[in-house]
């Protein structure tokens, strides 16, 4: 089993650059998150990695196949080894579950008996068993999404790309799908999950790439959380009076005010003593100071905020 290696991937549509400067690695059997706001280029990235769009620049290798694709093989090898859950389920409404899945089994030229074993297990798990012969046009949004996930897996791909897998699912189905993803990863499949939902990524992935048209960060979630370090300082009187002192520090820190509580956002842990010393020097009476991990969300929002509109 091989993982994924991406180097300097870039995609332009005409004059617009959808995404650029992407470099990251995904280990085999890892669940990796592609996290970014709407329009960040997650879908574009996944389309490049599944051979649907040719990268404008950069290289990648996954399941032993190199991108950009060599023209002679037309990506057939790649497509056999990767599975893709597209943003929209894209099912044939007039066809039944069985007919929809059979079609993709044939396109992948897999052993249908084996493939059906896997498919039945997944259908069972996703609560779709027993409805194999109904036309899928009558299914609910969540059922369609789950069926699309099954379809992405029928050929037992080594690497699976899931573009917002739990969108449109109720909490219970969302959990069933997340559990299934976790289990597939335990079987050694490499999974890449796109999402703008931090909590989903937090539950499933150990590492994420935060993108917003460029790569903002590749980090483990623990690292991301640490990036979200803050110091909560209680001072006597109005904290606002001491904010000016902070601006004289040689490193930049952010801050949030709440009456007598001052939350100072740090880059590194080692900055805490300097911050306290600075406040004391300016005459503040510090009652308590303790480190608070900022919620992951803030660290994430900081990363995707434009350089120009930083607060």
């Amino acid at each position, binding site marked *: 089993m091989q993982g994924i290696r991406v180097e300097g991937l870039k995609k332009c*549509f005409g004059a617009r650059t959808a995404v650029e400067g992407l470099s990251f690695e995904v280990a085999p059997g890892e669940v990796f998150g592609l996290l970014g706001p709407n329009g960040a280029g997650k879908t574009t990235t996944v*389309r490049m990695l*599944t*051979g*649907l*769009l*040719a990268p404008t620049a950069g290289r990648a290798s996954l399941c032993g196949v190199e991108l950009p694709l060599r023209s002679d*093989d*037309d*990506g*057939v090898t790649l*497509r*056999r080894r*990767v599975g*893709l859950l*597209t943003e*929209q*389920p*894209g*099912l*044939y*409404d*007039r*066809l039944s579950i069985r*007919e929809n899945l059979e*079609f*993709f089994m*044939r*396109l*992948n*030229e897999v052993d249908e008996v084996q493939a059906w074993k896997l498919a039945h297990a997944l259908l069972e798990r996703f609560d779709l068993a027993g409805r194999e012969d109904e*036309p899928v046009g009558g299914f609910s949004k969540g059922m369609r999404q789950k069926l*699309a996930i099954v*379809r*992405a897996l029928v050929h037992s791909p080594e690497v699976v790309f899931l573009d917002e897998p739990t969108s449109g699912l109720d909490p219970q189905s969302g959990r069933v799908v997340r559990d299934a993803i976790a289990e597939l990863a335990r079987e050694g499949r490499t999974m890449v999950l796109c999402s703008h939902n931090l909590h989903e990524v937090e539950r499933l992935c150990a590492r994420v790439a935060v993108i917003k048209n460029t790569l903002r960060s590749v980090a483990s979630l623990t690292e991301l959380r640490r990036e979200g370090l803050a110091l909560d300082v209680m001072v006597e009187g109005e904290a606002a009076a001491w904010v000016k002192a902070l601006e004289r520090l040689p490193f930049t820190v952010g801050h949030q005010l709440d009456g007598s509580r001052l939350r100072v956002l740090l880059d590194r842990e080692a900055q805490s003593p300097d911050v306290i010393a600075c406040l004391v020097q300016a005459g503040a009476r510090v009652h308590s100071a303790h480190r608070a991990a900022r919620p992951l969300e803030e660290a994430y929002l900081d990363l995707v905020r434009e350089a120009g509109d930083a607060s």
Partner: protein
Amino acid sequence: MSFRLSRALAVYRKDLLDLRKNRALLWSMLALPLVIVVTPLGIVWAYVRNPTDPGLKAIALYYDLTVDLTNVARFLIDKVLADWFVIYLVMPVFVPILISSHAVAGEKEKRTLEPLLASPVTPLELVVGKSLASLVPSVLICTLAFVLLCVGVDVVAWPVAKSLVLPNGMWLFGVFVIAPLFAFFGNGVAVLISARVGDSRLAQQLAGLMVLPLVGLAAGQFGGWLKAGPSYYAVIGGVVLLLDLAIIVAARRLFDRERLMTRWG
């Protein structure tokens, strides 16, 4: 580019299955053959009902001054059938247009194209599979319509003809050689257009314009400007053969996933 027949056939089978379940499309596909079979029967019947009507002589003389005046009804029956073939040709153009605009633009409309292109199927296999799924039923429908037309005409014309009027050499050549060329053309135009516009109704309308030249030819024939016959249809067939070759050249631009994926208008 790699080509696996099994994958093209998988597409073909899926599309046929989808077509079989698409009631609305099936009905609209059947309406046209019905009109094309029943209308000439009505005209032939009008000639047979009163074969000695002096009005018929006048019509026959308008088309041909050397006509055998003892049997103008037979002359007119043969004439309407020779002329009607150009209308019959609307069917092999239009039925594949109905099917393929749905089959190709439909994949975009329903967002099924992306999962499809992410599978190992190549664009060439896709186009071949879809074209087969449109051409096979079209050719079947056209053949069936021709059989019904032959039986109908022979039954209705029997009192005057006393022998089989259809099939004749010209119609056989037309139905089995020229009509498939037209079907190839209709399908090709529909595939090309719907791969670009991604909206099956618009694709159908644009491709549907392709039948207009046939209507023009028919008008010329009924007006007496054009004389339909074997060599006339052979020339039309030759022109369509050239158009078919042009379509094959144009279709090579389709065989690119990115182009198929990102073209929305």
